[in-house]
């Protein structure tokens, strides 16, 4: 320790340490350069697409349609949509597309056999087709991107592509998916049959859209699309091995939507599980006023259920002034499995319940998807939610054939006579369709009574499964939304026996009497300041009597594009009517 210069040795030692000291790379995340090698990599990546399944969006979608009256006025239904500022508000989002396209740009690098690779590419293209189908329904024309974009890509600023190009691209993707996906049925993953079901849905949508939106000048191409719908549906019906769920029980229809395990009719469902803490809130949405808002079926929807003998409800004398107890008698069996009717009991509950007007001011409580009382705690439902159901394919087939004018008895027996069977309805016979003026009134210009019956069956069978809005759009029946929706009919105010058991259980009043003046065992419902009966002293409950709803046919069939995107990309044009 004589010399301080020993220190110099230390200094030199320290300064001579490795030059790549500042090079540090991530070790617990993968990089795209080293990924996409094995089938496992392809599986792991494509698993991310299942986040795009609609989940509980399916069961809330009809809350924005003429099937349901919403206590909080829905801007979509009321024609109160505003031009959004950001892409997020507008739904003009492309993140899913990028995720899918990134896979399609890289999967070829995997060191596995082509059919295996194609299987996953088919999965990706299925999800891409679905993505573009959603975007096209919303915006009409959309820009088509077959690959991922870089920040300096001129295509960032391209104009929208026509719906014709989009439809053709969707069908190309779907045909690839149908050819390469597994044919093994599986109701939690996407298979060949799921792709066929989507093709059936897309082609029916676009075929009818082009047929009825004549201003597009695409009507000539409609029959080809409808034919594709028939073909895709037919292949699934013939070779898919699916069947309509029917045990003969009067609860078949209800059980299909309240059980955790999907049945033979379900092609693809979103699955839920308590242990995995993946649950939804159907019981809350449809029963608790503070969750999902106050919602109830409209009278118009309830009226569209046939009588058990197959005749229209409108054929009854004075059908429009019947009270709850009468109007619910002898109807399609599916009615009592979709909404509260006299004698309704919860699954697992013993007492019969009358309608809860607080939850459903129209008086028609929605019960489809409401599982047993053990799922009443907030967000605890585990019943599977359908994404593709065989019955839809049958209805698509029947509708496409009817639109083409080629439907025959055999077609009816293979399709809607199977779904009607669950309602206890007699089979429909070609040439023996009873015309329903109520139905003709809401679909003016349709002279084919069989087509009208098919549309009725679609509305009944698929209610609350998210089809009604897009059906109205493709049929160009937007004006149906601007009607003042009605609720239950009351010939007077005062006490009622809603469940028809001989004792009063309900009181319709203007203002709630003080507690001491109320009768026990009676549910009081006060119209208050905002609701009223259609003829003041009597009539149908009107939840929004004074609102002027609008459906501008020059504008409202499509959504507006976001302002920021139009200013970023001058080639992007706003949809008609929204400028």
């Amino acid at each position, binding site marked *: 320790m004589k010399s301080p210069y020993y*220190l110099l040795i230390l200094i030199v030692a320290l300064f001579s340490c490795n030059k790549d000291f500042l090079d540090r790379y*991530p070790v617990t995340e993968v990089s795209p350069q080293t990924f996409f090698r094995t089938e496992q990599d392809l599986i792991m990546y494509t698993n991310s697409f299942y986040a795009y399944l609609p989940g509980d969006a399916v069961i809330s979608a009809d809350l924005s349609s003429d099937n349901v009256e919403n206590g909080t006025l829905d801007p979509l239904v009321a024609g109160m949509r505003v031009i959004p500022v950001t892409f997020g508000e507008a739904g003009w989002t492309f993140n899913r597309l990028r*995720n899918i396209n990134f896979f399609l740009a890289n999967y070829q690098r995997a060191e596995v056999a082509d059919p295996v690779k194609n299987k996953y590419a088919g999965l990706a293209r299925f999800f891409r087709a679905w993505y573009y189908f959603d975007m096209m329904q919303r915006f009409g024309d959309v820009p088509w991107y077959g690959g991922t974009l870089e920040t300096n890509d001129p*295509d*960032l*600023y391209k104009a929208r592509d026509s719906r014709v190009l989009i439809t053709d691209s969707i069908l190309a993707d779907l045909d690839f998916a149908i050819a390469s996906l597994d044919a093994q049925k*599986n109701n939690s993953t996407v298979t060949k049959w799921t792709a066929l079901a989507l093709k059936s849905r897309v082609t029916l949508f676009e075929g009818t859209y082009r047929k009825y939106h004549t201003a597009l000048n695409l009507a000539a191409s409609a029959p080809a699309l409808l034919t594709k719908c028939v073909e895709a549906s037919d292949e699934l019906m013939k070779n898919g091995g699916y069947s309509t769920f029917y045990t003969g029980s009067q609860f078949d229809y209800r059980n299909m939507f309240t059980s955790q395990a999907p049945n033979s009719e379900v092609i693809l469902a979103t699955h839920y599980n308590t242990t995995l803490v993946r649950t939804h809130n159907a019981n809350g949405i449809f029963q608790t006023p*503070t969750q999902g808002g106050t919602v109830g079926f409209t009278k118009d929807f309830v009226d569209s259920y046939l009588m058990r003998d197959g005749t229209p409800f409108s054929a009854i004398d004075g059908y429009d002034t019947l009270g709850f107890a009468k109007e619910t008698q002898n109807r399609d069996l599916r009615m009592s499995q979709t909404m509260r009717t006299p004698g309704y009991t919860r699954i697992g509950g013993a007492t019969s319940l009358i309608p809860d007007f607080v939850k459903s001011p129209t008086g028609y409580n929605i019960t489809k998807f409401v599982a047993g009382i053990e799922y009443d705690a907030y*967000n605890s439902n585990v019943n599977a939610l359908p994404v593709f159901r065989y019955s839809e394919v049958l209805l698509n087939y029947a509708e496409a054939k009817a639109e083409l004018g080629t439907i025959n008895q055999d077609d009816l027996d293979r399709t809607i006579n199977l779904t009607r069977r669950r309602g206890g309805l007699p089979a429909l016979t070609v040439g023996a369709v009873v015309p329903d003026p109520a139905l003709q009134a809401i679909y003016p210009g349709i002279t084919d009574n069989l087509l009208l019956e098919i549309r009725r069956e679609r509305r009944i069978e698929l209610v609350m499964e998210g089809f009604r809005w897009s059906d109205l759009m493709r049929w160009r029946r937007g004006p149906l939304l601007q009607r003042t929706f009605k609720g239950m009919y009351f010939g007077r105010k005062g006490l009622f026996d809603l469940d028809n058991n001989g004792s009063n259980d309900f009181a319709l009043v203007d203002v709630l009497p003080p507690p001491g003046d109320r009768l026990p065992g009676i549910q009081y419902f006060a119209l208050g300041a905002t609701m009223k009966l259609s003829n003041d002293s009597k009539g149908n409950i009107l939840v929004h009597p004074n609102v002027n709803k609008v459906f501008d046919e020059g504008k409202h069939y499509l959504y507006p594009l976001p302002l920021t995107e139009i200013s970023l990309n001058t080639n992007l044009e706003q949809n008609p009517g929204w400028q």
Partner: protein
Amino acid sequence: MSKACKSSPGAFRLHSFFCTLVLAAFIGLPASAQDKKPVTGRVTDHKSQPLEGVTVTESGTSNAVFTNATGNFSITVGSGEATLEFSIVGFAAKRVRVSNLSNIDVQLSMANQDLGEVVVLGYGTKAKNKLVGAVNQVGSEVFKNRAVTNVGQALQGAIPNLNINFGDGQPGRPAEFNIRGFNSINGGAPLVLIDGVPGDVNMITPEDIETLSVLKDASSAAIYGARASFGVLLITTKSGKKGKTRIRYTNNFGYSQPLRTPKVVSDPLQAAEIQQLAWNGYIGSNNVSLTQIIDYLEAYKNDPTLPQLWISNAIGYVSGKPTDWYKEMFRDNTPFSRHFVEISGGAEKVNYYLSGGLQKQDGLFRTATDNLKRYNLRGKLSIDLSSWLRVSNNTELNNEVFDSPQKFTSGGSNIYRFMSQFAHPYQTIKTDDGYYTYGGTLSFGQLENGGRVSNRRDVLRNTTGIQADVIKGLLKVNGDFTAWWDRRRNDVSNRRLTYRQSPTAVVQFVKPDNFISSYAQNQLNTINLYATLTKQWNDHSVDLVAGFNQEENRYSLFTAQRDNNLVENQSGLSLTDGVATVSDRKTEWATRGYFYRLGYDFQSKYLLELNGRYDGTSRFPSGNRFGFFPSAAIGWMASREKFMEFIQPVVSHLKLRASYGALGNQQVDEYSYITTMNIYRSAAILNGAQPLATGSPTLVATDLTWETVTTKNAGIDIGVLNERLQAGFDIYERKTTDMLVAGAALPAVLGTGAPRENSADVSVKGWELSLQWADKFNIGNKPFSYSIRAIVADNKAVITRYDNNPSGNISTYVAGEQLGTIWGFETLGFFVSDDEASKWADQTQVSELINQPLAGDIKFADLNNDGKINRGDLTTANPGDLRRIGNSSIRFPYSIDLRFQYGGFDLNVFFQGVGKRDFYPSREAAHFWGFYNRWNNPVYEHIAGNYWTPENPNAYFPRPRAYMALNENRPLGVKQTRYLQNAAYLRMKTLALGYSLPAKLTQKTGISGARVFFSGQNLITWTSLSKAFDPEAISDEVDSGTFNGDGFVYPVQRVLTAGVEINF
């Protein structure tokens, strides 16, 4: 020792005291020697007042004593040849030869400016009067005898523009430090250095601190380079001093109480009726469940034997017997204890310091509480190997265990949020047969049965260093290596809850049932190597520091989780049998830099300092990773000029300073420039399981580089009336440029966020002022000394560039906007009639409720007269009817510190406050909004009787109407002038009263000094903020990113303690 701790708190206290005594006996008191000569005496200051704590050393030996409170000392020296040295900070040292004297009285004079306070700087120290950067320093007095659990609490308000935030009152909550305001959009925090190397200030014990310096401007921080761009906290711990072994023991016992817990209306019937009004206001008719409850409560009034009424999950069980949920939730008093022992001293070639601290604090929950334990140990040793070489070692061992009930019921929703939905006086926590109700189980049941969280943290830090006087008095070389291991073990159990759903059903609440164990280790290795050259000649003085610094950080995390706990009161991976998941994460970063500081002064009058650092980091691609960041500072001691002589009788010193410099900021993610794909467990259930999934990587720019932080600073220091009045003022501007943010906006078709680029700037302007008056005089024949110190500061941040927002959308950063701006509507009041409401501008866009506005509803001003109340394009150019109604930034933080000493008594009163701050309670701040948020929220006392009715048109709140504050498109959810809160406050942070026992009394027992004290924290608060919030906890849950709502946090507490300090 740890076993003994567990037995009982009382036993433990005794035990630790015993330990102290035994330790003292072992270390021993210096053995007596032959031929000694006793000397006594008294030390006084320039005003003949006794000076306490003066070190009296026998020159050339380790023999030393301190003077007591009366200035007296007593020492035994080797012989009459000995010389005594008297020294204390702030006074000139004095040497006296003993000769034949047995009584030596000494008067010390104030140190002249050159020998004044020494301030710790980066890689060195500097006399305070030569300082040119913006640096503040505090000493150990700030940390003494206070009921604080960590350093941050003691520092709140101690230094101007050192902002300290906790967020809530949870025991052991670490402080967040900020120096001089907004740093960067990417965050950023001051660099904390403990004895020259990075460390965690929240883990060390306050009593160990000798000095704490805050380096605020670029010139003082520049030497630390890339990690110091937002200032430096420089902590120097105590060291052993040559002389007699000194033993100090201090403790602190007391309890804490929650402040500002929500106050709910206690009458069940009144509460239910007000809720019914709110429901009615919302939907126009009565709520069936509430009608049932009201009917029941009325019946219960007449017949209190009625059983509990079951309603539904939304309401649960109803009882006529009132329940005060918050009283049941929080304990009135929770115990708190601290112990600290220090043993220090030094001999000719060795100095040593050894300390140990222990702290225990229980939490507030009555049902199943949380508790914090912290142990601190520090050992410092330095040995002179030769006349020019010293080696030293500094070891720190800190352990903290926070064991608490799982406060998150599901996802990130905490129990406070659930309490805010169920704490009705008419609702019961448990049913008569002992089951929790729905609401009871989500709050109380969650605490008791929902699982526990145990966070254990161990910090081990060791610095080994050498100091060499290579050329005596000219060149020194220092080198040190530090390894810092920071290990965290988190064990979390989540368990299912059951509750009574109905008289016939006990059911489960769906939530995870699992055990998650994670272990994280962070290791930081630091190497410092630097040389110091000092040279004085004639009027010139030069000091140069140059060196090298290297840091390497490795982080690794291992997490294992398995579902389904099998054993009721015990948790562990082996005690589960469900789905198992393991994961890990590893990250690394490294920096390397070369630095210098050149100081020069002429006659201590003209001062110059140049700093610089050439810095490299692993966080940027190799081409952009190095940067050079220089700074310069000048100072002028004006009071030394001849022409200023005339002021010298009054102004003892006057100094002007200015500095300018740039620093790099590398506080961004480790791998910002590298593309990676994250692998995660999918939420979707495929074939019965949730498989792993991955997706496309985000886009990254490959040319990322440093954010640059440029600071301009000017300051003035002044001392008046023989330094009795001292003042300092600094003004600064700090610009952070090229902040790494999303680049220029790209069309959404890109499908991912625009990659981050160096494309945003922010400018912070501020100032800080400190004033101190200290004096002493005699009352009777005893000295009375006092001091008052006040500090106030301010800063304001403005975004000066933000490329990603060309349209000026006010929901994100906008160039030219001040940060913290609150945009809102102007509230005109309430509609006086339905008619007025129907004729007023269309408010539908901000009142998405099912009924139209009526009398008693909020009336907004239509500022742009377009007949609609709206937000325009939500841009600064077209904000519709929005305007800037306030600012959420903290402005004018200030503090006042009062100290008095008389006889054996000392008193310290410390106030801390914020002069200006606005706060808008967000939509889910249900402690404030009550039923305006959701109808079934409790009715709070501040709302009952204070809402609009035709009879009470001037109430604070509008007509009762549920859901008005549910989201941001509702009349109360939208920010507006009427409910904007003034979050300014002044809080008596500390009141500490001490009494030092007379030396006569203590010396007989071998104790050189003893002091008893009482201390209180957070005793009084003055604020006009709503009682629903604590001004220091207005934000959301600290431990979760999930939105709960403002104010749903662990309550801030008042702490009252007493303790003793004994010096041996």
